[in-house]
């Protein structure tokens, strides 16, 4: 909370962004405390990692200092106080934290908890619900991410500019940094793969794995420069990879339709329904992982490859 207030007060946008990252990390710790390991994992990777990097790269393209406020904030403060008071009044009727009789726990959740292990055949219920029971939602969300990535590319341009921005030079002399990063990157990528394929047993899955994998590449680009990173993973492959991920997800759905089952019913994939479910979830998570990875990385490329406008 204090961090949030400090972030509002500060006029140096660089500091605001870093505080926002700290805030995300603290939120992740809170999620962990509330038994939401998968969510904590995602928040730590996305909020504290990728969002901060993206905000910083767009600050590089704009400016660091915020102008002093022109008008008094009293009116908006009043609006906020009134809304906040109304919301606090509303919480007085809300169920207490951890109350097992609250309506949230009465609907479909007990069924998921009891049946998921038998029907889908994987201990991590979050992954089972994500990829199997609510497969349509997840497909939709993957499409949203894909569309958002395309929107960024359309706004900032597919094509790289002919001369990439000149590095400040200081990065190239950082021997210690380079050596450490060289050691860390393979571990990051390996860990991402572990998260990807182990998501059905422990915390993790396609979303987290894609983000972590992209983080490895972002680190590489930041330390070793844009040309090296684009040599490893060319920018024009990324939209194709993203489309491939979405197609993989949709393809699994179409396949089960062709096999005479409803769209995205994975039991069509194998003679044994539980086996089929497991295979389906793995394929779908792979599709999600590929899409998320390539979209995050291409957004970063688009932001970092752009030259600063001189004003």
């Amino acid at each position, binding site marked *: 909370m204090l961090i949030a207030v400090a972030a509002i007060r500060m006029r140096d946008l660089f500091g605001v962004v870093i505080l*926002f990252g700290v805030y995300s990390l603290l939120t992740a710790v809170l*999620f962990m405390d509330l038994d*939401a390991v998968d*969510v904590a994992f995602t928040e730590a990777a996305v909020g504290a990692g990728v969002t901060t990097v993206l905000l910083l790269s767009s600050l590089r*393209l704009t400016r660091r200092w915020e102008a002093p406020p022109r008008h008094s904030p009293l009116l908006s403060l009043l609006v906020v106080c009134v809304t906040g008071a109304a919301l606090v009044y509303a*919480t007085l009727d809300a169920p207490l934290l951890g109350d097992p009789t609250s309506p949230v726990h009465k609907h479909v959740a007990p069924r998921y908890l009891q049946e998921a292990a038998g029907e889908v055949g994987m201990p991590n219920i979050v992954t089972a619900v994500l990829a199997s029971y609510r497969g349509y939602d997840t497909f939709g969300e993957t499409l949203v*991410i894909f569309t958002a990535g395309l929107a960024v590319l359309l706004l900032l341009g597919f094509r790289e500019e002919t001369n990439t921005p000149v590095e400040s030079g200081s990065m190239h002399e950082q021997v210690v940094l380079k050596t450490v990063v060289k050691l860390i990157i393979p571990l990051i990528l390996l860990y991402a793969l572990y998260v990807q394929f182990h998501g059905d047993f422990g915390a993790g899955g396609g979303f987290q794995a894609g983000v972590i994998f992209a983080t490895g590449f972002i680190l590489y680009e930041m330390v070793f420069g844009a040309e090296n990173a684009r040599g490893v993973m060319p920018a024009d492959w990324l939209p194709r990879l993203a489309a491939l991920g979405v197609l993989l997800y949709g393809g699994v759905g179409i396949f089960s339709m062709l096999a005479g089952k409803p769209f995205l019913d994975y039991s069509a994939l194998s003679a044994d329904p539980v086996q089929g479910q497991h295979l389906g979830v793995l394929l779908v998570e792979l599709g999600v992982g590929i899409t998320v990875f390539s979209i995050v990385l291409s957004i970063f490329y688009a932001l970092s490859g752009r030259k600063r406008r001189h004003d």
Partner: protein
Amino acid sequence: MIEIPGLFNYWVVVFLMMAGFYVVISQGNLVKKLVGLGLFQASVFILYITMGNLSGGQAPIVTEGVFIYSNPLPHVLILTAIVVGVATTAVGLALVVRIHEAYGSIEEDEIHALDLADDEALSMEKDDPQDSSE
């Protein structure tokens, strides 16, 4: 775990949500507005996860000897929402970058003033076409 009053989490959520809301409506800087939107978003995430929590529950990964799990459904919703959130934030940032390229500023007031000046110049041209062509 320490005993916390049952509603405390909701109040934290309300506070954070209002903090984000305040930033969005009162600050002129576009990047800061996006950060405020992020604050707001995170508070909603906390609200969902709070609802999914169950006292004495464990993380929803089936293990021997554990019978109470917290509700997996909010976790699924929020997990995807976080990733979608970063994607939409990126779209916002891309727009900010383009606005900065077009106007040379990311302050709402300055952009508005520039727009007004543009409009005035345009209407002047319409009123007096010969003046501008000379």
